[in-house]
Each structure stands twice: as C-alpha cells, then as structure tokens.
C-alpha cells in the first residue's frame, strides 16, 4: 500500500480506489462505523471523484458533439456548367414540382392537430367486457350513460381497476383534459405491464396516441401509431392508416 500519503487520509483514498488489501479494508470499514469525521472525509472524496467523472463525461460528449457537427456540414461542391437542354428539363421538372408542392402545401397548412384528432376519434363503445369483473362499477354505469363529468367524480378506497382507468382516460378525453387523459391511458399500460395482462391495452395505446396528437406531442404519437401499424395482432391496426401517420408527420414538421 502507498505509505507516502498522509496516514489515514492516504488509506482512505486507497479505500475509495479499491486498492487496499482485505485486512486493511476491514480496518477502514470498522473505523468508518464509529468515526463520523472519517465518514465525512470519505463522502467528500466520493463527491470529488463523482465531480471528476461528471466533468470527464461532459468533455467526452462535447468532443463527440464537435465531431458530429463537423460531420453534418455538407460539403460544398462546384456545379459543372449545364447544357441548355438540361436546364429546360430542370425547369419543367421544377414547374411540376411547384404544382405538386402547392397541393401538398395546401394540405400541410390546412391540417391541424384538432382536425386529425376529430377525424379519427370515435367514442369507445362499452359493449364487450374484457376483464374479469362481474359487477358493473359506478364508473362504468356513468360512462355508458355518457355522463363523463360524473365518471371523473368517483373515488374509491381502492385503486382503480384497469378498465376504470381506461374509462377515466376516455372521460378526460371527452372533457378535453389531455394531460389527465394521457396519465390515465399510461396507467392502463403500466398496470398491464405490472400484471402481465392485456386488458384494454390496445385500446389505451390507440387513444393515448390520439390524445398525444391533440396535445401536440407528435413524436410520442408517431411512435405509438407506428407500433400499432406494425403489429398485425393489434385491435386498432385498421384504424391506423398510412394517411394518419403521414398527417401526424406533417403536423410534426409544421
């Protein structure tokens, strides 16, 4: 062991670095149990080591960042002189492109997240029962009666079932409360993950994606829609068209 550094302090650094022999390590551990000052010193050393690691990581990312920014700069190439025919061809192609761009431009600017939402939203019809509950809950009764505000007033001295969370999500969506609708749908997904079940999972994914659209969280919406589209077993696969995904992409880039 290094004995050139001041006594116990040196040992403590070696302890921090994992360089002590087992017997010396035990000695330090024993001392640490009773010596508060030594514990404070160790905490200080751990903090210093963590600061160095944070600094190193920041430097590394900054260095890669610089490389990536240089990589992204497109090389400037000189364009060779073109013949007249090629110029005409380009002009014609540009005109066609302009017309097409005009069409897409119109679609692009007339689109809104609210429009995409309403075009694709249909109130969930509560006819089939997919979970194991036998009795209809108060939330379910109110939902069937389309009393969405009432749905949200219920609180029980037990957690909401997955089905209830889903219906609450729908009720929040109906009342225009995107944030809470998102939370409720996410809870459905989380509860299913925990229980390894699929109760209202597909429904929650679809309506969560739609609510993300209305909430302008397009990245999240796109990811969910793409997952649904690529899953042949998904109950809502047919509701997620290429057009819907294209529209959300357009909204994202606006």
């Amino acid at each position: 062991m290094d004995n050139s550094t001041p006594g116990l302090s040196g040992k403590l650094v070696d302890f921090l670095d994992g360089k002590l022999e087992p017997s010396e390590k035990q000695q330090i551990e024993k001392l640490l149990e009773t010596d508060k000052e030594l514990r404070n010193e160790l905490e200080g050393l751990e903090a210093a080591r963590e600061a160095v690691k944070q600094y190193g990581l920041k430097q590394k990312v900054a260095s890669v960042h610089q490389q990536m920014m240089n990589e992204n700069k497109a090389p400037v190439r000189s364009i060779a002189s073109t013949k007249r025919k090629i110029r005409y061809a380009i002009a014609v192609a540009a005109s066609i492109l302009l017309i097409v761009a005009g069409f897409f431009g119109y679609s692009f600017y007339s689109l809104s997240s609210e429009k995409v939402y309403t075009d694709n939203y249909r109130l969930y019809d509560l006819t089939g029962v997919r979970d194991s509950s036998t009795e209809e809950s108060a939330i379910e009764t109110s939902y069937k009666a389309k009393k969405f505000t009432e749905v949200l007033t219920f609180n029980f001295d037990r957690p909401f079932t997955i089905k209830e969370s889903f219906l609450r999500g729908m009720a929040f969506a109906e009342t225009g409360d995107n944030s809470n609708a998102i939370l409720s749908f996410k809870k459905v997904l989380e509860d299913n993950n925990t229980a390894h079940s699929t109760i209202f999972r597909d429904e929650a994914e679809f309506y969560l994606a739609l609510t993300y659209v209305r909430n302008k969280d397009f990245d999240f919406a796109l990811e969910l829609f793409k997952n649904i589209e690529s899953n042949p077993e998904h109950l809502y696969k047919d509701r997620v068209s290429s057009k819907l995904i294209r529209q959300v992409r357009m909204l994202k880039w606006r």
Partner: protein
Amino acid sequence: MEVIKNLPDSELLDNIRSDRKMDETIKAIYRAHFDSLCWHIQNNNGSRQDAEDVFQEVVVNFIDLVQKDKFRGDSSVKTFLFSLNRFTWLNELKRRGRALAREEKYEKGQERVELDTGHFIAEREGKAEVLRLVGELGETCKKILLLFYFENLSMKEILEVTDYENEQVVRNKKYKCLKQLEQMINEKPFLKQTLKNLLHG
C-alpha cells in the same frame, strides 16, 4: 472512412453500462436522435445553439443515468431522450424566465409557481457549478484525475502518458489533486449535496 452505424437500444445500453465503445455509442445517439430533438427545441422558442447545448446536456444525463442503473429500459431510448430533452428545455426556459422575473420584478405569486420545480433547477445549476469547479483545477490535476477516475487508467499507464519520474510520484500527485478538489467542494456545501444526490439520489 468511419462506418456509419445505428445501434439497437439493447446494444447501445450495453455499451454504456459496460463503458466501452463510448465514442461510437455517443455518435449513434447523435445520428439517431439529434435532428428530431433539435427540432423540438427550435420549434419551442429555442435557437440552434440552445438545441445543441441542451442535447449535449441530455446525452450526458442519459449516459450518467444508465451507468447508475436509473434507466432500466422501461421505455425506448428514443422516448426517454425525448422526455429528458423536453424536461431540460422546460427547465431552462423556467430558469431564464426566473432571471427575467427578477429583472422585471414580477409579482411574488410568480415565484411561488416556480418553486414547484425549484429542486430540479437547483440540481441542474448545481451540476453546472460542479463542472465549473473542476474546470478551475490546474491542468495537471485535471489530467491525472480524469485519466484515473474517468478513463480508468492504471498508475503505470498514466506514467506512460505523462512526464513523471515514477508511479509513486504520479500516485502522490493524484492524491494531492483529489484532496484539493475535495477541499474546494467542501467549501461549497450545496455542491457536496448535489454530488451526493447524483451519486445516491
């Protein structure tokens, strides 16, 4: 020429956890996510420079969280980075708003709202302060400490890339540098707390 490669989440996370191929891994994160997250900032009142700064901060935090096993893959890397990016930018906007509020003497009610996320802001600012503090160390100290604690080089390997006479001299120098940094941190208790939170929080 370097091969441009996108990594699946599992490989990316493995690399970060085992601290290997880090340059390649960070580049993969940039290639897969920089454009979209940059767009998000620029579309929310941020400049290109803001977007670059926030993205760097997000990548640093992401790697740190993965290495400390605080990200367990419950969501995709993309979703997680998107959320980190948004949170960091909101936090930055609030920080700027707070500075503005002080300048313009906003009403007290405004301050109360901002206190809701005060501890997050303190964490970010504390972390930035930690980085500034390490930057204040002498170049030699920074180099030795980084080689040992960040690059995980042995004393022998450090000796090969420095001008010291022998390993013992390197060891002594490293000890003194670490103690110096410890003292600097001890002089600012809130920084020590920030670092404790980063370690154990």
